[in-house]
């Protein structure tokens, strides 16, 4: 791997004034962001804030209309997505994008693409070096499946996996590219409590055992507060706050924009809708939002109340 490391002040990823405009909408608006290697950084914000769009900028799916994003000192602007993958940024998708008609193992084997090289000639004539590489690809893929706990499913179709397992498979596939930075877009969405706890474990292991920097979009505040060492908050495309988890919890702008909206209820509703859409639970006949709506309280893992202003409670009860 050729390492072009220009002056980047020790940051793995550095966004300066990053902006993308869709027609009249500045989906990401003058965002400055730094990610230090080896950290777990979260990107939070209400729906439509521009979080996924920022990931798309970072991975070359969109090109910033203004500003710049550097990865290890190199600008990602105008670079093809597969080139950026080669540099060492990998990702998962908010709306799971697995290769559905391929097996679980083959999905991960595709992830090895960027670190392997055999081509048309080796494939056609099945040269010894081709076969050696194929074997290595499969062995590596199996190891990643073991790492995320899906090896049992290796020969199943990806689309046949339960939902939570599909999210883990996306992570395995992303890890197989041997990234330096892994971007996880709402990895806990649609997971139940125990799956979500396992996911926390997995994310920690990715950082601690594999030394991969983690960039995390997540709505589940428990996950965020458990894992993130630094948090960026987007709202309407703009960065409205950044800081340590404790600072974010007490930041008035964040509470106003985001936490005050009764996240728990929002998450529950979202999860319910998701599960209903997948036919895994029956649609609710009589909606009972009161239980959730009366609980606009956010806590960190120690049970410290983050948002409990009467203001917010009233707002939510009224809504």
């Amino acid at each position, binding site marked *: 791997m050729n390492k072009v490391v220009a002056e980047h002040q020790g940051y793995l990823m550095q966004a300066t004034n990053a902006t993308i405009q869709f027609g009249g909408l500045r989906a990401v608006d003058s965002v400055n962001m730094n990610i230090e290697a080896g950290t777990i950084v979260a990107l939070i914000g209400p729906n439509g804030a521009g979080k996924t769009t920022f990931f798309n900028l970072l991975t070359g799916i969109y090109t910033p209309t203004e500003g710049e994003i550097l990865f290890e000192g190199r600008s990602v602007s105008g670079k093809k997505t597969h080139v950026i993958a080669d540099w060492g940024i990998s990702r998962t998708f908010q709306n799971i994008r697995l290769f559905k008609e391929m*097996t679980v193992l083959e999905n991960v084997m595709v992830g090895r693409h960027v670190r392997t090289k055999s081509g048309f000639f080796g494939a056609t004539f099945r040269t010894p070096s081709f076969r050696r590489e194929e074997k290595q690809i499969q062995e590596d893929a199996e190891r990643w499946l073991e790492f995320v706990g899906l090896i*049992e499913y290796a020969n199943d179709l990806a689309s046949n996996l339960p939902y939570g397992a599909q999210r883990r498979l996306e992570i395995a596939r992303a890890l197989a590219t041997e990234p330096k930075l892994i971007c996880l877009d709402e990895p806990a969405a649609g997971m139940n409590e125990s799956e979500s706890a396992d996911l926390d474990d997995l994310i920690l292991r990715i950082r601690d055992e594999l030394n991969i920097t983690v960039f995390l979009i997540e709505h589940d505040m428990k996950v965020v507060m458990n894992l993130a060492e630094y948090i960026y908050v987007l709202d309407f495309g703009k960065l409205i706050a950044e800081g340590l988890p404790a600072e974010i919890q007490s930041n008035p702008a964040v509470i106003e924009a985001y936490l005050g909206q009764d996240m728990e209820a929002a998450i529950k509703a979202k999860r319910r809708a998701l599960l209903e859409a997948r036919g895994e639970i029956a649609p609710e006949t009589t909606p009972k939002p009161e239980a959730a709506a009366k609980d606009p309280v956010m806590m960190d893992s120690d049970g410290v109340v983050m948002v409990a202003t009467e203001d917010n409670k009233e707002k939510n009860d009224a809504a």
Partner: protein
Amino acid sequence: MTNTKNTSNNTTAAYEDQAVKGKASSAEAIFGNIAKPMFSRGGNKSPLKTALTALLLVFLFALPIYLQGMGEALLLAALVGIGLYVILALGLNIVVGYAGMLDFGRMAFYAVGTYAAIILAIPLANLLGDSLEGLVFPLVMVAAGLIAAFVGWLLSLPVMRLRGDYLAIVTLGFGEIVRITIQNNPFGLTNGLLGLPDRGNVLASPPFFDWLRDNVYWALGNDFFFTMTRNVYWYYMVLIMLIVAIIVVRNQDNSRLGRSWAAMREDEVAASAMGVNVTKAKTWAFVLGAFWGGIAGACFGFFLGGISPEPFSFLNSVIVLAIVVIGGMGSIPGVLVGGVLIMGFPELVRWFAMNHLGQAGGDIQSMVANFRNLFLGLLMVVMMAVRTEGIIPMKPKFHKLFGKGKSDKGDHTDAVVGAAPKGGAGS
């Protein structure tokens, strides 16, 4: 722990209880039916399959020995036609089945291959002289394959960003452009609508043909004899090229390149995020698919001993596409069955009518051309209604695992929720 927290947990738990139950039952339904046969499979080879393949090969190689009469000679010619279309369809299958792009202009590459072979053969024969005559066809065939592949590359340039309908329209147009160009006699090469007929006398003999015709014949009494006629020779040549095509295409499918096609077909954005160079994968699909058009074209041209633009119609492009779609996109056995069915059935009717129906046979023969399109249309309608994935659908690629996990068919639902096995990652 505060009280508020507990309440919050309880309500969440209520939702999730339901969720978990729903999940377990759906997982059971899925894994009960699908996972078990999949897990017991592991590799791709079963003894039964090997035996059937061997039997089929013996049958195909022995067939000309039994087809020696006048009518049978025509049947052999029909079989050559079927084989050529199957080779074409195998090439198209790379583009349509593996890479997931539509191509309505397959005849373009077939035409390029046919004309290239015929046009190149005579100067090459003069160059090589009589003693090396046998080399002319193999060289010309490879050249035709490479020229068609080059044309495939040219086509891939403008269509790189197109998808679905747009791609279909552009490839359709391309097929027509090639045919019309040939009709207009560019650089005096193709002789326009008249084509290049009767080159049979001047085309060099393909390898060993003269020798085989002079030396390979035998008779067992009056009823059973064998001679190497022209049709028999081309039957074997096409059969061998077909087998080569199957092996090569299958190898390419079962590779890093093949995986990049499949990933691109399934999800282009995800594929490129995993490092697949989508442009490159598409280009290779077009190039390698077109190559077989050239190979089939060269065989076609030499088999006919001449050529005109008629066989390269849009309808025939559609027929090649129908072979792939009805047989099973991305499935080599599907393409074989589709080819035999779509190309073979009308030929069989024609042959039967001619040999066994006397006077009435003539009329039926003339109906066959139309009947075939009706048959094709009906087949398509039926397939779309009952089996959209084709007669023999593409199978996922199962792998025999190197590591652990292959033998355990235990409780799958637990395995996902449970903790991941420790360590051993990274490479």
